[in-house]
């Protein structure tokens, strides 16, 4: 069975966050993610989408964040692409939460996304743009 991805293209503007959160939960629902887990899925994806808008696209509403998702029998795969070209190694070891860092007002998005989604991978598209892959297992 071929799984066809659905693509969501979002301008980098905070106004899209609320519809995005609801859309991601709708996607989860259609893949039969348990009601109780939907908000964790949406938190994880919204964290990564916010990063894409902010760090990848510098909050320029003309720049697009593309979230494509494919619902496989055992998982949903989300690809979150922005128009930047991040060096993904920077994501490794990024983990605030010790000593003084605990009081930073930011720097928790990736940590939260990784914890809620179990699998979050930073990389680049074939064209060299930042791509984050999030896998949400289904049971």
């Amino acid at each position, binding site marked *: 069975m071929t799984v066809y991805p659905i693509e969501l293209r979002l301008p980098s503007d*905070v*106004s899209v*966050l*609320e519809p995005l*959160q609801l859309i991601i939960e709708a996607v989860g629902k259609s893949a039969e993610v348990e009601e109780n887990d939907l*908000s*964790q899925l*949406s*938190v994880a994806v*919204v*964290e990564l989408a*916010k990063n894409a808008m902010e760090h990848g696209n510098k909050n320029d509403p003309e720049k697009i964040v593309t979230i494509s998702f494919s619902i496989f029998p055992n998982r949903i795969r989300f690809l979150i692409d922005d128009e930047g070209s991040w060096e993904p190694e920077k994501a490794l070891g990024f983990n*605030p*939460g*010790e000593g003084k860092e*605990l*009081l*930073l*007002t*930011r720097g*928790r*998005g990736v*940590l*939260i996304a990784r*914890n*809620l989604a179990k699998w979050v991978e930073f990389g680049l598209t074939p064209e060299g743009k930042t791509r984050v892959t999030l896998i949400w297992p289904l049971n």
Partner: protein
Amino acid sequence: MHIKQEMKGDVLVVALSGKVIGGPELMEVKEVFQKAVDQDKNKVLLNLGKVSWMDSSGLGVIVSGHTTLSRAGGALRILNATKKIHELFIITKLITIFETFTDEKEALDSFGE
């Protein structure tokens, strides 16, 4: 998101409700803490019981409130975090710097100690 404020004794109880998702709304919350300090109300209890959705942006504002209030000699404490929000405090280890309560009276009393 909605913000409700109410004095209980010398503690300002700030209740958030709805989605805490980002944008200009978050600035409002930040301002609530700043204004509290300006008005010498630096004991603040933040009621999260009716927050239906929150991510790291919300945590960022809460941490900033903590810093603002602590510097002024006060404190920010947390009331009724839902199971999911509590989980965010654990993941981010913020649980180690925030006192959290599930009983309002107990929370209010804690400021007097």
